[in-house]
């Protein structure tokens, strides 16, 4: 078991418990916002959910979710796409933890929302000890059977596509810390999503594809982290290429 302070273990356990208790209130609000207010939809959601269940049940062990990032609400769409909301009450470990930038949650409202949304903050470029502590928390959560979701690009892509040039290597450090972890790569994109925005476009239909990756490297240290992060980002870029190829060929991309 990972060595994180008992205080951190207790805090994470408390956060999980409180988040679980509030899930029946918070999740429908988020769903209402997505489904009714924004009129968003996930194309062939049943197929996506079946694929998710198949991949999760294929083998035991930690799973790290890595997806592309174009809107601030991608996590909500991912949660919605992967499983019916009530099912999370039975498999709450599948409601993924997120790792947002701390500076983005300065108001009390977003602090509470992120606490209930199972967020563990990270400070990009912060003190080594603080970053290390966050990394240890993530490793602990993964080894405890919790899903953790991160955006390996380190932010919303400014290039409209998966940015294979300017991505961070933090995801590689996580993969190094938990080498047995599988990486569930998720590519999601709304048909109207031409570039990065704060919120998805109203009425947009999202395509979501899933692929499992087992990143491996012989390298260690920073070089190993870079290698693993590169494998993950290139997998997402491949998924994106297929998305656009399908969209161009058939007018509609294939799913799951």
């Amino acid at each position, binding site marked *: 078991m990972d060595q994180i302070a008992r205080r951190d273990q207790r805090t994470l356990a408390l956060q999980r418990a409180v988040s679980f208790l509030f899930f029946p209130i918070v999740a429908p609000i988020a769903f209402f916002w997505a489904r009714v207010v924004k009129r968003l939809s996930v194309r062939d959601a049943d197929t996506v959910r079946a694929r998710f269940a198949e991949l999760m049940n294929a083998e035991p062990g930690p799973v790290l979710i890595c997806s592309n990032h174009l809107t601030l609400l991608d996590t909500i769409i991912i949660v919605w796409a992967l499983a019916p909301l009530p099912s999370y009450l039975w498999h709450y470990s599948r409601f993924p933890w997120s790792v947002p930038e701390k500076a983005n949650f300065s108001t009390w409202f977003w602090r509470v929302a992120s606490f209930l949304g199972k967020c563990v903050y990270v400070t*990009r*470029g912060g003190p*080594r000890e603080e970053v290390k502590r966050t990394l240890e928390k993530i490793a602990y959560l993964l080894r405890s059977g919790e899903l953790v979701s991160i955006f390996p690009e*380190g932010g919303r892509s400014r290039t409209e596509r998966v940015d294979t040039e*300017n*991505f*961070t*290597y933090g995801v590689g450090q996580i993969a190094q810390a938990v080498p047995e972890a599988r990486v569930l790569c998720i590519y999601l994109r709304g048909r109207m999503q031409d570039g990065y925005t704060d919120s998805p476009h109203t009425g947009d239909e999202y395509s979501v594809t899933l692929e499992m990756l087992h990143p491996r490297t012989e390298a260690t*240290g*920073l*070089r190993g*982290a*870079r290698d693993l992060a590169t494998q993950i980002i290139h997998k997402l870029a491949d998924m994106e290429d297929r998305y656009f190829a399908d969209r161009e060929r058939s007018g509609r991309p294939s799913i799951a």
Partner: protein
Amino acid sequence: MEHQETFDKVIGIIKPFVKNTDKLSTADEHTRLLEDLGVNSARLVDIVLAFEDEFDIAIDDEAADRVHTLGDAVTVIQEKLK
């Protein structure tokens, strides 16, 4: 390796990562990589790994964290070369 020679090699290595290229021609020991030269913080790892390749040294995480200016980079490299 002489200090100036190391400095010149450092300049050559970081050049592809620099956004404010006009500042590079007047850069000195105190020039900061991120703030002055506009290097993307995510690319600092690439720069450190490029130092390792060029000088055939290993730079640990703690030493890498000390690299803020061109002078810091030269100091770390020369320490590792000893």
